[in-house]
């Protein structure tokens, strides 16, 4: 992240994703806490509704991008050299895995 023009982009993106996380995240968190001990059928039924699984995918993608920028800047602040490059790669792999696996899982749960 040594590219100088990327700071403003990250500043704006971090705030836009934060707004999405707020708007979708609070209901998602409340729904999760409500259903998580209600049993398999109730949860499956809930996640098969379009009004639930599509916003959940948007939430996961927004969350992942927010995570990528946030941890990327922490790595910028506290590490340098080869270790930073390695940890940045790990950050990218982890974030893309979270985004990809969650999206696939939500599509399977929503449509099948």
């Amino acid at each position, binding site marked *: 992240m040594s590219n100088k023009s990327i700071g403003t982009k990250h500043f704006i993106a971090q705030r836009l994703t*934060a707004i999405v996380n707020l708007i979708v995240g609070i209901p998602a968190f409340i729904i999760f806490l409500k259903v998580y001990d209600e049993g398999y059928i109730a949860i*499956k039924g809930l996640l098969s509704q379009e009004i639930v699984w599509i916003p959940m995918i948007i939430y996961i993608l927004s969350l992942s991008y927010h995570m990528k920028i946030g941890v990327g800047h922490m790595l910028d602040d506290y590490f340098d050299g080869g270790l930073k490059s390695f940890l940045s790669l790990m950050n990218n792999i982890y974030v893309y895995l979270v985004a990809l696996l*969650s999206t696939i*899982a939500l599509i399977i749960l929503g449509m099948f």
Partner: protein
Amino acid sequence: MNNIEKSPDQRPLSPHLQIYRPTISMIMSVMHRLTGLGLYFGVSFLIFWFIALILGPESYQKFNVILSMQIVQIIFFVVTWAFFHHLFGGIRHFIWDLGLGFSLKSVDFLSYMTLVLSLLFTILIFLLT
């Protein structure tokens, strides 16, 4: 720390935290990073939850046994608190982005509110569910 001299493209590292006298706003700023990092790893729980759901009722039942363990409940409590701490910390940043709340009094007030509201919401949620 010599990376400024090595190349202007490389950015300097943050100075060590312990050289500053801690203030509430500084602690809350550090907490914002730490809770963010905690949530970063906490999110992977969701993937296990999704996989358990896809695999069917039996594996979900097994997953639920793990969820009801006391240690997992404690982790849940901490992650919930981290979620609300990061959330209210984020709202604090939005207030600053609007150009408000920059007096020393307001900064301290907003910092304490982050702590108080996050604890309050976490305890409320655990009492209600």
